[in-house]
């Protein structure tokens, strides 16, 4: 697990975001009311720049017109086709089990702690210079399978995705809903007083 410093905490105000290049990946870092979340800036639908999309609140309703609005700013819509993603979980609204965007752990760490860790180097932590005062946002990224690029620096300039591209390609359309199992009529819809009006004997 490599750790990358991507910003100072006060660079991204509540409701704000910063898109960074880390280890060959484009990643969006979001501030939701003081909590930080990081998502891959690559939409699982067709690879669009998800993290450049607009954010909205969550809209739900049990029946027509009874709109419940909650979680302002926590739903990210993809810049390409507008699919919704929950910034906290990375899950899509349309198919939360199948279709999610990769999310990364973000921690907020004081500069002096990072400097101390860099002296006794923690694996993967990218070296300073750090200032003691500001707090930094640190994103944790697992090394990619079959690649050591993850350890190669905070701004590797390899463009987006690299070796991941194939994997996302493959997910692309197959991540769209597969054919649902045939649904059955609700039992209660069957219950009928019509049995007295039976078929001919």
């Amino acid at each position, binding site marked *: 697990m490599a750790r990358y410093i991507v910003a100072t905490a006060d660079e991204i105000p509540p409701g704000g975001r910063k898109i960074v290049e880390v280890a060959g990946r484009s990643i969006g870092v979001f501030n939701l009311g003081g909590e930080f979340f990081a998502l891959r800036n690559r939409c699982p639908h067709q690879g669009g720049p998800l993290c450049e999309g607009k954010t*909205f609140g969550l*809209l*739900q*309703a*049990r*029946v*027509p*017109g*009874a*709109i*419940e609005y909650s979680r302002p700013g926590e739903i990210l*819509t993809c810049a390409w*086709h*507008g*699919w*919704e993603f929950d910034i906290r979980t990375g899950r899509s*609204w*349309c198919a939360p089990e199948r279709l999610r965007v990769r999310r990364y752990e973000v921690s907020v760490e004081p500069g002096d702690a990072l400097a101390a860790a860099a002296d006794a180097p923690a694996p993967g932590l990218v070296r300073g210079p750090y200032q003691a005062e500001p707090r930094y946002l640190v994103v944790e990224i697992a090394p990619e399978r079959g690649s050591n690029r993850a350890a190669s620096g905070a701004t590797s300039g390899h463009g987006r995705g690299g070796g991941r591209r194939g994997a996302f390609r493959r997910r692309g359309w197959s991540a769209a*809903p597969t*054919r*649902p199992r*045939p*649904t*059955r*009529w*609700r039992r*209660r*819809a*069957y*219950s*009928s*007083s*019509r*049995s*007295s*009006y*039976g*078929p*001919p*004997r």
Partner: protein
Amino acid sequence: MQGSPGGSGADAGAGGLIDCDVHNTVPRVEALFPYLPPHWVEHVRQSVFKGAGASYYPKNAPVAARPGSVPPDGPAGSSLALLREQVLDPLGVEVAILTCLYAIDSLHNPEAAAAFASAVNDWQIAEWLDREPRLRASIVVPVQLPELAAREIDRVGDHPGFVQVLLPARSEHPYGSRLFHPLWAAIARRGLVAGIHFGGAPGNPPFPSGWPSYFFEEYAGMAQVFQSQLASIVSEGVLDLFPTTRIALIEGGFTWLPAFMWRFDKEWRNLRQLVPWVKRAPSAYLREHVRLTVQPLDAPPTTEDLLDTIAQLGSDELLLFATDYPHRHAADPLQAFLPHLPAALARKIRGENARALYGLPRPA
């Protein structure tokens, strides 16, 4: 598609045959006199008003009446004896669902619309349901006046012969509109099926782009009307507000449904914030709540095309056998379609799907 072809012809032993679209026609306005209030009888006698038209099919169009279905004393579809002789007996029909196309929706006088709807329903009870136990019927309602339609559904909806409310596919407003909530509430309250049937005479054009010039255009283009009704019903939350709703699309074809579901699902993923009560992909609502009759069949060029299309529906529970009597689409409706299908699917289409939809009892 798995399994071997084998949906057999008129073999009643393969599971009771249920015909989901048989038209019973009011032969002439006088037939309704016993069921109309006296002042309407007088009005019809004294004025040029003779009630509503009886069919959306032009008279003498080749599809309008199969040979021999016109009795000596009335239009095609007005004779129970001929219905027995041409459909119920030879095909071994266990149950046939009557769909009376008396065009109440063309009557702009609300009292007339309500009175004639009640008369047609009482006529259906007396002349059809009470006389033939193999029949079930559809309640005719003044759909343009949802409150009055609901009142009529409440009046006769518990009669065991009525299993459905007939809604013309063409309507003054799309059926998902909130104007229709009283109608959907009544249908749900009485546990009936909403049967959306080809045609309608609401006064506005059958195409969103305006008036077609030829019957051919209207007839071939009616699938888009069915699509717009489904788009409306799902998008405007009818199925969320009335979750027991069951819908039969009658005479609308079905080959357009897979493509429509693809489009509908796709747009839901980016526009669902506008209709947050639509909680699942629209196709999931459709597969749960909507069924479709198979006649008239859109006749894809090859049997393989037909089977592909049926597979794309994503469920073997959607299709319902229908003859559409007395309209003529196939010389032998049983042989036209079912023998090409795997046996299990054919069995469902012959009767099992309709039995579930209409809550019909299992054969003894």
